[in-house]
């Protein structure tokens, strides 16, 4: 499986789409900037939600109301992140696919999405679910924060590895 990666990068970087991305000089920086802006949306939404889940910020707002407000924009931002991310990987596959920091980032991303979905699902089934289980809520929130921050850190480090 691992030995397939260099061949995959070779093949990808020679596709017409990849060549197009590589050759329009402003495309990668522009796509990266859009990627960063979308990261900002995801990060602030999750930071606010996770701290509320943890009970650190006690606003006059219910967790359910907050989640209903913040999560839809987060999912939209994630779609933009996926599209911009895919563009960047297709444009420069050798920088990302064999890079362990990038692979770690993807693994954490999957975990973060699953965790967020679980948090959301419990709120939908029972609005007071997390309110009634402060210990589990703190754990879920802490894990979520660590994962999302970890994704950004791994993303930055992949440029240096």
């Amino acid at each position, binding site marked *: 499986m691992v030995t397939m990666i260099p061949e995959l990068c070779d093949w990808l970087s020679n596709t017409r789409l990849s060549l197009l991305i590589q050759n329009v000089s402003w495309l990668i*920086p*522009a796509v*990266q*900037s859009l990627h*960063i*802006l979308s*990261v*900002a*949306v*995801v*990060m*602030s*939404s999750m*930071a*606010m939600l996770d701290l509320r889940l943890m009970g650190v910020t006690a*606003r006059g707002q219910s967790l359910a109301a907050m989640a209903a*407000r913040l999560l839809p*924009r987060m999912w939209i931002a994630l779609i933009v992140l996926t599209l911009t991310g895919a563009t960047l990987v297709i444009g420069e596959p050798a920088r990302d696919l064999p890079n362990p920091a990038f692979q770690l980032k993807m693994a954490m991303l999957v975990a973060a999405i699953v965790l967020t979905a679980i948090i959301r699902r419990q709120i939908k089934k029972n609005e007071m679910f997390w309110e009634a289980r402060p210990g589990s809520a703190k754990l879920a929130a802490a894990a979520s924060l660590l994962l999302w*921050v970890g994704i*950004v*850190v791994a993303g*930055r*480090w992949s440029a*240096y590895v």
Partner: protein
Amino acid sequence: MLTLIREICVRLQETSLATAIRESRWLFPTIETLHVLATGLVVGTITMLDLRLLNLASRDRSVREVSAEVLPWTWASFACAAISGALLFSSDAVKYYGNLQFRAKIMLLLLSGVNTLIFELGTFRSVAAWDRGRTPLAAKLAGGLSLIFWISVVTLGRWIGFTTTLR
């Protein structure tokens, strides 16, 4: 005046802290990552308020409610972004000072500050009158300009990276 600033930059990057950041393999990337995280929080949270001022999001909540929720985050993360940014700048002050994208970014940050000040001292004073309904033109303008400024700051910030490091 300009040579004075340049002199300050030279002295700054020769300090032991700046030198340590510049010469360490991990210190610069770590501070940069903190800078990115802090900036992300600034932009993400201020966007929520800007979109409310533009009547594009959170219309069911009052402007004061949104700003009370969001601004503590914005200020705290801005402080972190400013400190980490200053540290990054110091590590190679002369080079960044001479960098066009860096200068443009600082200008936009200043403009954003002026925009915020004008809004806080002017339009926002009468917020009780338009808190729950549609926002006045001045508020929409402040929100729209803020969005444009911050998107530009992020883009220029990324561009600095492209123009100052070999990839």
